[in-house]
């Protein structure tokens, strides 16, 4: 099995190169890159129109040489393959380049956002599992009761309504009208002056609404998964036998069925480490949180290719490692699983 995992780790390399080369090439094809953005900004003002009162931007077009200079500045002057390998070479020494929008090192731009994203990522994780596992268990035991029906409706409603709509409704009702919570932000303006407890409270009160919006949609899947798999196990012979032999039902659940029911959840667990790099940009925009979702989406839309590639490097690595971690989790939870003997599971 060790050799299997070593092989999996080695396979990360070709996959990583494949992903990055594909996206790198795509960035060359997307219309409206940084040079065109620059042009459109400069274009909107004209030559000796009246506009030139104060606006000193000439209406003349750029010469080819000037365009070449711009291309060189943004690194578009070389063939894709050449610049890709240059980029890759830098990545290997942990240099992700500079953002074309912020002129800041990409690494700094990304790490600036990490604390916020990790905070929300971890709390989303805790809340999701903290709610889904007990709820799924309870629903499995109370299958087809009113409780089951009502909670199903609620979690599916949460799943169905887009999270950005939830976010906006929450903000309008609880922050704007009732004034129970602040109007967005990660922390309050005077955060630095607060005591430790004050800081925690400040963080909490700012996090309530975004966390609800983040998690509202994520309950459905895990809860139903938990419920189904627990029901399967409760139906299995070994549990029935145990109960038939007079075992306390609680013990039957917690001693036998529960652990086996966690397997399907465990298969997805490793992937959660890439959760910190996702985050919905719309929620972040509405709650004014300077997190990863916003950075990712803005860099895509604004064609900030170094940042796009930087995020890709991180997220693809995390994703690939997460897949392997999932397998390890499964192996830990389920000792019967043997990887590497022809059948690979995901």
């Amino acid at each position, binding site marked *: 099995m060790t050799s299997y995992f070593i092989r999996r780790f080695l396979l990360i390399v070709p996959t990583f190169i494949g992903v990055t080369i594909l996206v790198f090439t795509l960035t060359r094809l997307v219309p409206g890159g940084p040079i065109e953005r620059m042009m*459109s900004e400069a274009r909107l003002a004209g030559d000796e129109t009246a506009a030139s009162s104060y606006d000193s931007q000439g209406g003349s077009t750029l010469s080819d040489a000037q365009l070449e200079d711009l291309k060189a500045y943004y690194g578009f002057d070389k063939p894709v393959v050449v610049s890709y390998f240059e980029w890759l070479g830098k990545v290997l020494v942990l240099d992700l380049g500079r953002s074309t929008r912020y002129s800041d090192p990409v690494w700094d731009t990304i790490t600036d956002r990490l604390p916020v994203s990790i905070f929300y990522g971890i709390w989303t994780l805790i809340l999701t599992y903290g709610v889904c596992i007990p709820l799924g268990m309870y629903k499995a035991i109370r299958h087809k009761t009113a409780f089951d029906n009502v909670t199903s409706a609620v979690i599916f409603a949460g799943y169905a309504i887009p999270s950005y709509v939830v976010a906006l409704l929450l903000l309008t009702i609880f922050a704007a009208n009732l004034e129970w919570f602040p109007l967005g932000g990660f922390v309050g303006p005077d955060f630095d002056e607060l005591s430790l407890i004050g800081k925690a409270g400040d963080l909490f009160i700012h996090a309530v609404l975004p966390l609800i919006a983040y998690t509202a949609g994520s309950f459905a899947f895990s809860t139903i998964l938990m419920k189904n798999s627990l029901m399967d196990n409760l139906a299995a012979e070994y549990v029935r036998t145990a109960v038939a032999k007079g075992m306390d039902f609680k013990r039957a659940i917690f001693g036998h069925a529960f652990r086996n029911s966690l397997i399907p959840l465990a298969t997805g667990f490793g992937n959660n480490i890439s959760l910190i790099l996702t985050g919905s940009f719309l929620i972040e925009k509405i709650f004014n949180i300077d997190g990863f979702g916003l950075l990712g989406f803005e860099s895509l839309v604004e064609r900030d290719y170094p940042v796009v590639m930087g995020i890709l490097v991180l997220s693809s690595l995390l994703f690939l490692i997460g897949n392997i971690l999932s397998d390890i989790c499964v192996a830990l939870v389920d000792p019967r699983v043997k990887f590497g003997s022809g059948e690979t599971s995901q």
Partner: protein
Amino acid sequence: MDCPAKNIAALAFGALLTAGCGSETNIHLELGTTHEPYAPPETAVVLPPIEVREGDGLPDTLPEDLVWITNDEDPVFASPDAKRGGTFHTSISGFPLTLRRVGPDSNGSFAGFLRPNQFGPIALHPDTRRAIPALATHWAFGADGRSIYYRLNPKARWSDGVPVTADDFVFAVQFMRSKAIVAPWYNNYYTERIRDLKRYDDHTYGVQGANAMPGAEMHGSYGIGPQPRHFHVLNEDWVANTNWQIEPNTGPYQVTKVRKGKYLEMTRKADWWGNDLRYFKHRFNPDKIRVDVIRDPNVAFQHFLKGNLDTMGLVLPQYWHDKATGAAFDRGYIVKYWFYNEQPEASGMYLNMSDPILADERVRFGIAHSMDFERVITTVLRNDYDRLSTFQIGFGDYDNNDIQPREFDLDKADAYFDAAGFETRGGDGIRINDAGQRLSFQVTYGWPQHTDRLVVLQEEARKAGLELVLDLKDGPGSFKKMLEKKHQIAWSGWAAGGLAPGYWEHFHSVNANKTQTNNITNHANPRMDPLIMQYRASTSLEERVRLARILEQMVHDSGVVVPTFRVPYTRAGAWRWVKLPESLAPRTSASMFSAFADTGGFSGGGLFWIDLEEKERTLEAKSDGESFGPTTIVNTTYRVQPAS
């Protein structure tokens, strides 16, 4: 908010292009990332002298016969009641990408905070549109018709206390011509349009431009701003090194606090050199300007309703009529202001003449008569906007007010389309010509919020048998398509502004059928070209006005532009404690609550003030639920009667 072109125009106008870093004004830079401390050079860098071409060049000594002019007779427009103090709260939708005023990404929305604080030698009076002193106290025009001489105010200082001298202007040309700033358009402008700049003494210099023009307009084209030569090191790392540096400026406010991703703060310079100047007195009143980053406009509005933001633009009909309602408005805590201004505007549908069907002027006229703008104005736009009558308008005497825009008239559209061969209608009601071509065009546009207007036009145009296919792209995408002339009909607007309309870039044949020029209609008319050149070369105001009106008529006659809407006003809501002069704003003001000098090219901003006592009263009344009664103030003094 509504008209991106207009906003960007406003930014571009403020563009006295400079850079610099303050040290004296208590700069407290809190950045998320660490940067090597930037060390300004001990001594000024030696740059090569300004290159002057054959046939250009200013005299070596100051000409004796110059007539020095100043302006101290135009009316003062600031209110003497203004009180200094308080903090003004406002917001932007994204954190700036840079604090530079020049170079990559310096055109973002924060440029509107940086550039107006970088003064030029003169400013333009917001009522009379005449030059008024800024960094310079006096100016004189050279005999060659294309040069101006300025005499600087010896009191003028950079924010770090260094005096502003003629050397800073010499440096500005060298700076702007340098490749290090990665701003090729500036490179071009300072090479092509600015031909020479010469220092005569510490406070006197002259500047020469490419061609002659009337004096008033020469200020606009050649009256470039200074750059702090004691600050900049021009090398290939300049862009990255200066990205988050606070450059010295000459205006009343300087950035003093930066929290990346969250907010920026600007502080009023206590002993600003311009405090007592005739046209700057009683202006720029708040001590601090706090700029929060609030990304979602709906959320920003909520902050405004709570009083976290002092003012909010209400130009869009939906904002003014629907959103700006509720208790805070009914009780008069927030006052609504509506000011009709005189701002140059140019927005329209630009028909691409290189399209084989659009090449036929009868089709173009037919299209114009199929557009029911009236219906859009009376419903979706709530009667707030006006129909624009000409390609561009708002330049005072230059405007050709005799032109009536082609009105929505199905009979006329019918006649034109029939004449162009589109006589029969297909099963879907769209016209077809004998060759089987459908009368269908793509309308390329880049602002999703304009979809409302277009879908109404689209439905009405079907009645004329004309199909419009809406081609919504994201901003850069739509612009690229237009500049590559791949569009059929472009729905767009231009950053019109300043003193006189421009025709060469939009209609001269040298710019037609070429990518990356502003002639997006590919308009080429051999009769019009010489007139455009004559207009460009003329130095007589009278002659230029006459020619501009003829040119505007020719544009109208060609039918390549279907003028769309004109926003004849600026509107905003403000909490009761933000006070304005009685007239609200000067004639040309693009924004009543601009904290800085510049509002759309004219020096009409910075007039409001924060009344701290009133603030206390208002907040008290608010917590007691007491009402002042709803207050809406409208000033229609400068309202232009709509064309139709």
